[in-house]
């Protein structure tokens, strides 16, 4: 076994030093009836060659020949090879949480850079060192708003990612806080009059997507204004962070908290995880934020360095009085995003965002020519819903051809007959105009010849 370096002689010497006769004797504190008397019933061992062959067999059962036209919370983007090469440096990769700052300055400075990047893109004042994912970050934002306002009602747009809403529901069920859902309008934006009716003096937070689940750029400014009037916090959720290269940061629009995922920067799809959740807020709320924070300080010789700070909010110090139980987060994924954003820089981010927006437009035009109208009228970035009749059937027919055409909105809104027709599609820099034309044609064929 290549990862067990012990020779039989060494094992004997070590057992002698310990003063026992056998490896089994090391476990005499485990009562005999509690020990496993048989080998584990897992499959027999594989050598490296056989292991690769088995894992290749499994990976080949996934169809990834072309980039999927699916967004809905995870976006296919190009990851420059630089990101992975740097990420795989063992000093980053095999370190743990930087509890010993003198030997963790690399991780810490990179986290400080990540926090700064999140602030710059969201237009907010402080950001933490990352969260598990966008959905749990959003749930934590609602819990923070509950702590800060002392209120128990969270108002959520129905156009927020349905999975995020369900996660919010799971987290808030255990604390008995109330979730109120507000519908969308014909533009695919959160319905403003309904929002005004829902937000009142008992509301802790207003949560909406930016862009939202339909790819529509929702009215964060209006929601933020309304929340502020009623003494609630506004939370803007971004799942396609490339949009923040073109759209104003939610903080600039008045949002108090921005959450979501930076998966789009430097992180492959990975069948949905891991990816770096982010959490940004206003400085005034920093002591109620969940998760780790990296801060600048000096060493005893007066040189600048970085440490984890404000840890009196955290579970390892405060135990049951902590702001959250989060411990491990998504540090390496945050590093990947940081490296990708460093490569992009000011100009590259703007270019990438414009390119994605242009690909969205190309997709819309191609689908229009193929005979498909948009389901919603609001402005979009790189993702949008089309009316294709029976979307589930179209997805299934194209899947049979090995094509991942998008997602059928009906599966997320089973109780809403209007959504049965909706096919949600995304286009990024990976979807060339030729590929987009191919998709539009394939959807047309699937619709025409069931």
């Amino acid at each position, binding site marked *: 076994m290549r*990862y067990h370096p*012990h020779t039989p002689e*060494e094992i004997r010497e*070590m*057992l002698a*030093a310990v003063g026992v006769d056998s490896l089994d004797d*090391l476990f005499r504190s485990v009562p005999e009836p*509690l020990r496993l008397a048989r080998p584990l019933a*897992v499959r027999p*061992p594989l050598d490296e060659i056989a292991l*690769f062959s088995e894992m*290749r067999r*499994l990976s080949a059962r996934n*169809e990834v020949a072309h*980039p*999927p036209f*699916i967004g809905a919370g995870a976006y296919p983007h190009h990851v*420059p090879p630089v990101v992975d090469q740097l990420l795989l440096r*063992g000093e980053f*990769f*095999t370190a*743990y949480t930087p509890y*010993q700052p003198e030997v963790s300055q*690399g991780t810490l400075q990179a986290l400080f*850079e990540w926090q*700064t990047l999140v602030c710059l893109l969201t237009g907010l004042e402080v950001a933490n060192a990352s969260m*598990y994912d966008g959905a749990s970050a959003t749930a934590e934002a609602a*819990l923070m708003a509950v702590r800060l306002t002392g209120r128990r009602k969270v108002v959520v747009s129905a156009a927020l990612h349905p999975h995020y809403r369900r996660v919010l529901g799971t987290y808030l069920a255990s604390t008995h806080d109330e979730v109120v859902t507000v519908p969308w309008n014909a533009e695919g934006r959160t319905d403003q009059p309904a929002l005004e009716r829902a937000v009142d003096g008992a509301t802790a937070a207003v949560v909406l997507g930016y862009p939202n689940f339909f790819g529509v750029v929702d009215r964060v*400014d209006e929601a933020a204004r309304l929340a502020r009037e009623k003494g609630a916090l506004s939370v803007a959720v971004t799942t396609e962070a490339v949009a923040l290269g073109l759209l104003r940061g939610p903080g600039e629009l008045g949002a108090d908290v921005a959450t979501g995922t930076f998966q789009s920067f430097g992180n492959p799809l990975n*069948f949905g*995880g*891991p990816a770096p959740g982010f959490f940004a807020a206003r400085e005034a709320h*920093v002591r109620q934020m969940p998760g*780790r924070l990296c*801060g*600048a*300080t*000096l060493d*005893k010789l007066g040189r600048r360095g970085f440490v984890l*700070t404000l840890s009196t909010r955290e*579970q*390892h110090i405060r135990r049951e*009085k*902590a702001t959250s*139980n989060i*411990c491990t*987060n*998504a*540090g*390496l994924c945050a590093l990947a995003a940081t490296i990708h954003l460093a490569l992009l820089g000011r100009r*590259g*981010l703007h*270019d990438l965002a414009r*390119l994605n*927006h242009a690909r969205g437009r190309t997709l819309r035009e191609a689908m229009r020519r193929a005979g498909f109208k948009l389901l919603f009228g609001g402005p979009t*970035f790189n993702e949008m819903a089309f009316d294709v009749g029976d979307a589930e059937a179209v997805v299934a027919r194209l*899947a049979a051809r090995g094509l*991942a055409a998008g997602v059928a909105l009906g599966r997320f809104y*089973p109780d809403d007959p209007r959504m049965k027709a909706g096919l949600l599609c995304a286009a990024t*820099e990976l979807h060339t105009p030729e590929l987009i034309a191919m998709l539009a044609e394939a959807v047309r064929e699937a619709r025409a010849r069931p």
Partner: protein
Amino acid sequence: MTNPTGFRPNMEQAAGAAAPSAEVGAGGATRGLVYEEPLLFERGSQGSRTGVSLPPPEADPGELPAELVRGEIKELPALGELEVVRHFTRLSAWNYGIDTGFYPLGSCTMKYNPKSSEALARLPGFAQAHPLLPEALAQGSLELMYELERALSEISGFAATTLVPAAGAQGELTGVMMIRAFHVAHGNPRRKVLVPDTSHGTNPATCAQNGYQVVQLPSGADGRLHPETVRDAMDEDVAAIMITNPNTLGIFESHIAEIAALVHAKGGLVYGDGANLNALLGVARPGDMGFDVMQFNLHKTFATPHGGGGPGSGPVAVGEKLVPFLPLPLVVREEERYRLVEEERERPQTIGRLREFHGNFGMFVRALALIREYGPAGLRATGQLAVLNANYLRARLKDVYHLPYATDSLHEVVFTDKGLKPTGATTMDVAKRLIDHGFHPPTVYFPLVVQGALMIEPTETESKETLDQFVLGMRAVAEQAKSDPEGLKAAPVKPVRARLDETRAARRPILRWRPGMKVE
């Protein structure tokens, strides 16, 4: 131009780098070329350089309402590819990882992270699979998840496992939510959870996040939780007890079966914190000891990389009575096809969703790769050698460091700084001086029940040779505490930074760069 990091060339002398005790020969740490490196934002941020290569947009995107659109974000850096590569390469050299040297951080199970696993997780079929692919196009991912679920359930001795939780702490949250749902289904959620004083901080934090009141239980003089203690605290308002086994002292909770029976008799459930599962692999199974639910930490036991603080993965295994409450989604096999169960209507008692998608799939690939490479005998050897390594260090160090509990250790051992008291040296000084010797310090000042704790977990992937070097280093530090306590206080002198002022960081927090940033 002054260096923005505050570095001055004559600093080594000021730091007293010529310490009287030689460190080379233990961990072998010396100095390589280490660079002062400013923040990304402090590097050439003028101009229009970029490190990416993109096609020009083929359509005019300019149709968003003007009030929604921002221009370039002027504070972002403007660097070419090589500048970025050097920046992060230099930062990496300031870090210490398992690949650098021995990392005996107790309770964190810092074992070697196989390179094979990295190559496998990057197979395009895995890395480029979208989580919402039609099931017909994602059979490989689903089969892998199914296989991992089965393997983890067998290894832990439980009926079923959810792979969803992102890390151990979210696994705990999931577990306690299921416990609550179980009690609600039986008519009363109950109000209290019992937690021993040796527990991880995440345990009480998790209970509080679920609205449970935490009742802390004292451990006995032998470091174990005793049935009498549980009996006295146990009533029908207690929803559960949370136990780490072996506990954070590295000691097996030998009374676990009796404790579980006491809790079950009053209708409570037993939660197992699986952070220390490495000790028991192939030797004993929590599901056979009376536990009803337990979280795994794949980044500990199954060698997925810790990544400087994540990503982790915290699957949760449950016995039969909690199966209906498992979160969504779940993978099921139907003849030769695999399918995700995503909807409440199929699982009406589920606690719901905890993640935007199906869990940290990238970690599943790595964990399954390790399980497949090890097989039954390799898994058992893992547990045995982890325990052998910890006991070997215990035997070689107990004459120089105070051992607070004489009870048998499993995978980790806790020492204290009590014996160093006359010299004025503390656990923190020992930790910092070990760095100069080329070792990552053990976990310090945890568990909280031990004053000045030094918690050492070597893991099974370390050779006797490495352990012997570490023993030399630990002994040299204990020796230096007597002969040169001031030298210990000055440590570390070799890393890129000396001890950092954490009080300053917390008093006036600087949590992001801004133009003209100064730390004073």
